[in-house]
């Protein structure tokens, strides 16, 4: 395995590593603001239509949603494990873990697709076939607009994440990462964890309202 050299224009590997991490954290900050704007809109309408939102949220598929949450959390655990493995030179181990995490990501997307098709069957898709009890239709439609936009955007981020994990897994398999050089691995891990964190927030906003308490 060749001695890793810092890429242009860096002088040392640690400098490159720190720059990559700072870059990823900055990028994640932009993502927080991006989803944040959407979440703000959610809260504004939740405040305006509390009962409608509760009624709409009760129609979400909590079993599927919870399963998906467990899947993503597990995948994040695998990714964290993979990063440690990669840092200590276990390239093949890291590759297997990353591939498994990507696989879980694929299952997540499949279940999401299943969920979407059920929602289509139940006429919960705004602009396509939305039909809801007239008493709560206004806010419920807004809820489901948020639901599809937020989970749709999230799913796109998951898909990109899967591609990244597989690409990094391939490189890990080729023993490209070590204690000295593992920036892409760390940074990919950060991105995946963030996608997971966004999901946890969305889970709370989408599946939980209207189901707790009386």
């Amino acid at each position, binding site marked *: 395995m060749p001695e890793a050299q810092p890429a242009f224009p860096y002088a040392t590997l640690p400098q490159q590593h720190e720059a990559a991490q700072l870059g990823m954290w900055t990028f994640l900050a932009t993502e927080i603001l991006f989803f944040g704007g959407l979440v703000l809109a959610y809260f504004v309408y939740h405040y305006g*239509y509390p009962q409608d939102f509760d009624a709409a949220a009760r129609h979400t598929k909590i079993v599927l949603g919870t399963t998906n949450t467990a899947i993503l959390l597990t995948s994040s655990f695998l990714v964290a494990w993979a990063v440690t493995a990669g840092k200590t030179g276990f390239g093949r181990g890291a590759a297997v873990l990353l591939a498994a995490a990507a696989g879980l990501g694929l299952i997540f997307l499949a279940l999401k697709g299943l969920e979407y098709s059920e929602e289509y069957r139940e006429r919960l898709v705004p602009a396509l076939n939305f039909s809801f009890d*007239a008493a709560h239709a*206004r806010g419920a439609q807004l809820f489901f607009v948020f639901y599809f936009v937020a989970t749709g955007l999230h799913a796109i981020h998951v898909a990109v994440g899967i591609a990244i994990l597989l690409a990094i897994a391939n490189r890990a398999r080729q023993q490209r990462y070590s204690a000295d050089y593992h920036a892409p691995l760390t940074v990919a891990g950060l991105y995946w964890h963030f996608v997971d964190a966004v999901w946890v927030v969305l889970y709370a906003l989408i599946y939980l309202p209207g189901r707790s308490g009386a």
Partner: protein
Amino acid sequence: MWRNWIPFWHSGASSYGGDVDLLFIGLLTVSLLVTALLFTLLLTFAIRYRATSDADRGHRIKKSWHWEVGWTTATFVAFLGLFVWGATLYLRIFDAPDHTLSIYVVAKQWMWKAQHPGGQREINELHIPVDRTVRLTLASQDVIHSFFVPAFRVKHDVVPGRYQSLWFKAERTGVFQLLCAEFCGTDHSAMTGRIVVMKPDDYTRWLSQQDVDGTLAAQGSALFRELGCSGCHMGTSTVRAPHLDGLYGRPVPLADGRVVVADERYIRDSILQPRAEVAAGYDPVMPSFAGRVDEEGLIKLVAYIKSLANGAEAKP
């Protein structure tokens, strides 16, 4: 007033217009002083310290906490003063005093439609009496417009889906421009009108000369029956619906525990989205009239229900 003899100046014609003008003069004075100071300094320094001059450049300073804190504090204090001045006047402009004359205005692409309580209707014109407080309730039929009367120094956006209000008291008779100040489509620049301020006698005469279909409340009463509202809300019916006598202006306990005041907004929203604020003790069975009644119709209904505030029904 002293403002009247400033050349080129059209002084404000409303009760708070003069104060807004004074604020403007204040801001202008501060700005002119600062600009003069700065330009003088820049010019003086640029000339005295031009490269070819042999002015004394000894004892240069790179920084000075005294100067920095000094000019920062001075700036901040001046700004604070301007903020308070503008804010207190703003609170007066938006806090309607007890009004005596309530007029409804509907904005739609690309015209202004005014409805007087006596049923008089105007398009792109608004006749009002001088020296009387007028409160306008503004509604939009379509997109966001903005009701702007430069002479009165007042403006407010007219946002669809809700009522806005603004008030003024004209202090001079005359004709003043009304302009739409929020871009609303093709003929935005043509959405202009006239505010005609008249002496009280002329105004009364003008009111009586208009072709009237009954007062606004009476028109509302007719619409109330035409749309079938009276079927549930009045007389005997199997459907239990709240009675509307004396409703306007009173607090209404809602089914979800909140208490709201039955104002114009509440009435309008109850007609368009009856399930949103159901009165306590009633079932959410009222149908929505969205799409079946436009903003002008809603205004008539609101005026009618307002007229029931004292418990007496308006005669048609």
